[in-house]
């Protein structure tokens, strides 16, 4: 119990519960399975990006370029779909997008590792390069009118329920994909040497190197994993809206980083959990959803999100400051 109280996730979870109670008391339709399924589907995109971001943040880096990576992978996939639509299937689409994402991620890692440029600078630069190249090549054209199988895949539900009015809803296949990615990420972080090494590198890169960890390998893994998530995310987005617009993702990096940080990952590396990240995404999701359901003008959304992030990060910083102080006092004694 005491251990539970020291965990950041507990507080995020409590915040979610409090917000949920407030929203439900104003509009009961918030706390319905239908709304839950809708939210899970809509936020699968942000959630997928967040998994990759969590890995990067734990490793002590940051990746701003993933939206540009996703824009490129999404665009390539869209072009292929329009050209060879019937010859592709959903698996090949994910593989192509993921593969390109991994390559772009590797490029980031190589620059960060060999030139020792801070990851934020590197990825701001590659964001511009990737996005710039895409704008030049694509002239910014939107792509739509994908083959019907691609649209149909978006509407697959693992099981289907009906509302009182007879409208169908259910757990979307897209949500299932997101859940599978969460499980994979969680397993890597928690139960593999690779995962533990990422924590070690993020906590203290110098001692991790002395302890014999392969920092190059770890960097390559972390950024290519982010690239993979960006690639998968771009397909999820294309599935969700059935349009690939070069300007629809770039600019949303901070929302994802905010969600992961909200879930307890530290920008200085070494900390963060999959559970926290899911909670962070959930909190941001229900706030956006809840405001509309409470009949609050959506113009307030950003203000409130900003405050929540500030309070959350402030509380966790205050707690870690207090715990180090306690630590020092006990050491002196």
């Amino acid at each position: 119990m005491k251990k539970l109280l020291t965990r950041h996730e507990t507080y995020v979870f409590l915040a979610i519960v409090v917000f949920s109670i407030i929203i439900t008391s104003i509009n009961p339709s918030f706390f319905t399975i239908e709304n839950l399924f809708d939210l899970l589907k809509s936020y699968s995109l942000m959630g997928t990006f967040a998994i990759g971001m969590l890995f990067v943040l734990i490793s002590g880096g940051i990746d701003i370029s993933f939206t540009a990576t996703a824009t490129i992978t999404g665009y390539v996939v869209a072009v292929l779909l329009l050209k060879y639509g019937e010859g592709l299937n959903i698996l090949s689409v994910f593989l192509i997008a993921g593969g390109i994402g991994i390559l772009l991620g590797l490029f980031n890692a190589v620059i960060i590792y060999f030139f020792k440029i801070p990851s934020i600078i590197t990825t701001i630069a590659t964001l511009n390069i990737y996005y710039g190249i895409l704008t030049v090549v694509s002239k910014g054209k939107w792509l739509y009118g994908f083959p019907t199988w691609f649209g149909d895949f978006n509407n697959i539900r693992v099981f289907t329920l009906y509302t009182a009015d007879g409208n169908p809803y259910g757990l979307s296949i897209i949500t299932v994909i997101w859940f599978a990615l969460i499980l994979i990420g969680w397993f890597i972080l928690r139960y593999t040497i690779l995962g533990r090494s990422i924590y070690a590198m993020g906590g203290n890169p110098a001692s991790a190197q002395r302890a014999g960890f392969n920092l190059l390998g770890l960097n390559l893994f972390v950024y290519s994993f982010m690239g993979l998530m960006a690639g998968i995310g771009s397909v999820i987005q294309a599935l969700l809206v059935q349009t690939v617009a070069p300007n629809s993702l770039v600019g949303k990096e901070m929302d994802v980083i905010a969600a992961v940080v909200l879930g307890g990952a530290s920008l200085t590396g070494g900390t963060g959990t999959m559970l926290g990240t899911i909670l962070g995404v959930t909190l941001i999701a229900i706030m956006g959803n809840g405001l509309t359901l409470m009949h609050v003008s959506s113009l307030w959304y950003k203000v409130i999100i900003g405050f929540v992030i500030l309070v959350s990060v402030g509380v966790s910083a205050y707690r870690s400051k207090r715990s180090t102080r306690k630590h020092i006092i006990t050491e002196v004694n």
Partner: protein
Amino acid sequence: MKKQMFWARFLSLVVVLSLLAACAPQAQPTAEVKEPYEIAVVVKITGIPWFNVMETGVNRAASELGVNAYQTGPAQADPAQQVKMIEDLVAKGVDAIAVVPNDAKALEPVLQKAKEKGIIVITHESPDQVGSDYDFELIDNVKFGEHAWDQLVEHMGDSGEYAVFVGGLTVPLHNFWADTGIAYAKEKYPNLTLITERIPCGEDQELARQKTLELLKAYPNLKGIVGFGSLGPIGAAQALKEKGMTDKVAVVGTVIPSQAAPYLKEGSMKEGILWNPGDAGFGMVWLAKYILDGNKVANGTDIPGIGPVTIEGTVIKADAMMDITPENAESLGF
């Protein structure tokens, strides 16, 4: 000795070069033949279908009228970036600038500066613009706003709850149409109820989809959505289709016909309203050249392919509003 030789050569070279430079313009007086006018069209954001179609009009005007006209714009719909681009064009000294503003207010100083330099400034979709010579509208904006609500009522009936999407709160025309339409509805359709403030999601399909899903739950009696911004109605239609509620909520608004065609056909979107952005591109360039040639725009001035215009103050209006229906959406060519 060697050094002296060097200087002598160097000096003679300088003399020869400067002589050449001085002669050059006199040597080829024929090169001074009037250069074609340089007319830059600066749009809100590059790459979206709407402005890609506008660009085809600009390019058509360039080749038909023999002017150096081209279209440019920021990669994001960002007022600051747009201001910067226009500043660069002013510094470059183009003959005319046509702008589709992201933020009318933000552009005032830079348009003023352009005018002081003698550059002709034409805006589009910004009737109250300060700092421009003329504003060109392909439609009568009051009629357009009212017509959108007429369409809404045609498909949802003249009573019930509805919502309004705009591209952003600083986009001049979207908000003008919304203001006009809401006021018109109060007069003519008193039983319509606007459920919430207009929602700025019309240029982001994912957001429009998500907002529509939320609205459906927050306002179970919702019967209609008017969307301005080419992606708002599409996102809304998508949400309705997912929920199987295409018969319960009527979506109308501004859309690109080819993109909206499947939604119009299946009924998740009822009807669209628009003008041809290609005409807007052509018209702006045509007007710029017409004015640069020393002509004065008057009532009845005829723009080829668009028709006669009327002028009120500095606003030049043509009447090219069109309805987009399931029947014509695919044949309009953009």
